[in-house]
């Protein structure tokens, strides 16, 4: 795997390309264009950027108003502030009122590392999954990011994107088909399925490589869309492999893992199953990578989890 760019950089360049040919595309920022890599956008297309200052609630409300007139609006701000402070605007002014704003949560998850809990978004999947009429995307790599932004242009509903700040590994062959709501199978195996989203997919891939050396084969799914959810991919994984491990840069509550668990339970499918994410505790101080390692979102950590699950299966 080769190291690509940060997904939020790819978002910004893709959007700039699109916006140069479409004046109805607008970006709305809250003192966030620097972090959003949108300084070139602001310079090249000054009439297509609206700045509201450090005011995320205002950002989402203004974006809803702009979108109501038919403009294609991207509201860009750190995921942590957008999905907590501006949650009511997202729920009422965007989702409920059906103003199809593309909400772009940058520096998501624990991208901000040691800046701490105020800057982490470990709740956004949970918060937004419970809100009707907003779809949720967490691209894993540069390819998925670009495809997701392109797909968003024709998406009929409000959308939330979650992008990280660090360079990510390229995971996909260029001819891969990307479709909102459809998981991508990155690797095939019989023993364990890793269902991962966003920046944890690469870690699951590394774990799969690790396990293969020990003769344990893994399927790896990039679940880039949290909503609408690809239930079929989860059901298949339960039927065709021996165990499922979900991996997410999110609280273990209310995110990808619980979405999978809910589907399995309601289909009566029982497989050894483990949700790996950030536990319900004061998040350890460190960089994104240190935080991942600390909570077992690492090749070694995930491989250990896989072995433990398979042992449970064998002994039962």
């Amino acid at each position, binding site marked *: 795997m080769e190291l690509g760019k940060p997904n939020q950089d790819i978002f910004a360049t893709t959007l700039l390309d699109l916006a140069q040919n479409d004046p109805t595309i607008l970006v709305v920022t809250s003192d966030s264009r620097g972090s959003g890599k949108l300084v070139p956008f602001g310079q090249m297309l000054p009439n297509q950027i609206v700045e509201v200052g450090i005011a995320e609630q205002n950002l989402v409300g203004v974006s809803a108003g702009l979108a109501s007139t038919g403009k294609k609006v991207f509201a860009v701000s750190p995921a942590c502030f957008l999905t907590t402070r501006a949650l009511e605007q997202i729920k009422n002014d965007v989702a409920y009122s059906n103003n199809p704003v593309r909400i772009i949560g940058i520096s998501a998850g624990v991208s901000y590392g040691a800046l701490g809990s105020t800057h982490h978004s470990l709740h956004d999947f949970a918060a937004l999954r419970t809100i009707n009429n907003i779809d949720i995307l967490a691209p894993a790599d540069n390819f998925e990011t670009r495809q997701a932004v392109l797909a968003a242009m024709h998406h009929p509903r409000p959308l939330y994107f979650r992008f990280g700040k660090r360079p990510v590994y390229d995971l996909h062959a260029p001819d891969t088909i990307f479709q909102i709501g459809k998981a991508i199978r990155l690797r095939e195996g019989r023993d364990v399925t890793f269902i991962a989203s966003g920046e944890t997919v690469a870690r699951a891939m590394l774990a799969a490589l690790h396990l293969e050396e020990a003769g344990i084969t893994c399927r790896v799914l990039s679940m880039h869309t949290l909503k609408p959810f690809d239930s079929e991919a989860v059901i298949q994984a339960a039927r065709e492999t021996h165990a499922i491990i979900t991996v997410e840069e999110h609280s273990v509550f209310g995110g990808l893992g619980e979405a999978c668990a809910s589907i399995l339970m309601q289909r009566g499918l029982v497989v050894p199953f483990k949700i790996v994410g950030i536990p319900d505790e004061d998040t350890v*101080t460190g960089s994104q990578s240190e935080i991942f390692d600390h909570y077992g979102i690492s090749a070694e950590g995930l491989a250990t989890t896989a072995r433990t699950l398979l042992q449970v299966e064998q002994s039962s």
Partner: protein
Amino acid sequence: MGLHFIDYWGYPSALDVTQGDREMDVQTLQLKSVAYRKTILEIIKQSGAGHTAGSLSCTDILNVLYNHVLNVDPDNFADPNRDRYIQSKGHSVEALYTVLADRGFYSREALATLNKYKSKFIGHPTRKVHGIEQNTGALGHGLSIAVGTAIAAKKDGRSYRVYTLLGDGELAEGSSWEASMTAAHYQLDNLVVIIDRNTLQITGRTEEVSSLEPLEDKFRAFGYAVRHVDGNDIPALIQIFEQVPFVPHKPNLIIAHTVKGKGISFMEDTVKWHHRVPTDEEFAKAIEELELAEVKLKAAV
């Protein structure tokens, strides 16, 4: 002990800065500011992250607050009568950690762990660190918390004051204005709101990003008693805090005119130093400038 210094920014030429054991003359405080700036740069350099310019901007304000104004120290931190300082512009945590270390809340060496794996010293104020009143970092929260704490003082008949520091860019958050309405409504003359008016935020000038002016008029209209001060001038800061309460029954608001990146020539008033970490060369030059400032201050004594 009375203390004398020359006429400064039009304020009186003599002040009594005696306050319990925190009696400290202006030169000592000025030297402290230089030392604080050094430490701020050192810990940012060492940890490889930090909000450099905003910390340098409010260093003198924190210096005067903790060494002259607040009745807060490591021994009385659990005392319900202590003054409260809530740093709403939480990103300037390096300044706060530095001043608290100097006040004896923990050792300066402890700051070497800033932002490191498992450290309690994270990149925004956290109550895990002794001396920190509230967890901040998301802008636009401190004023509401300060208002609540000040209302409690009134209810309990306590004489403590509540001080909070806001960035000027931060004022775009609507919550600041909601809190201001409550502050005026409850006539919180025990509340002291300080605006770090360095005229910069991340993207550029506040007036270009989201205009604030006429700022004083806005605050007055919201019911504050407003004063201006040079927020990088120690004697002027001492003077202004001594005037609190400015007007009985009105919340106090100080527009502190500061220079972002204050004290380092090439960081001053430039947007790019918001959260930039100095290179080795820049760091050496910055320390050199501070050492020169120290020599000059000592020579003037």
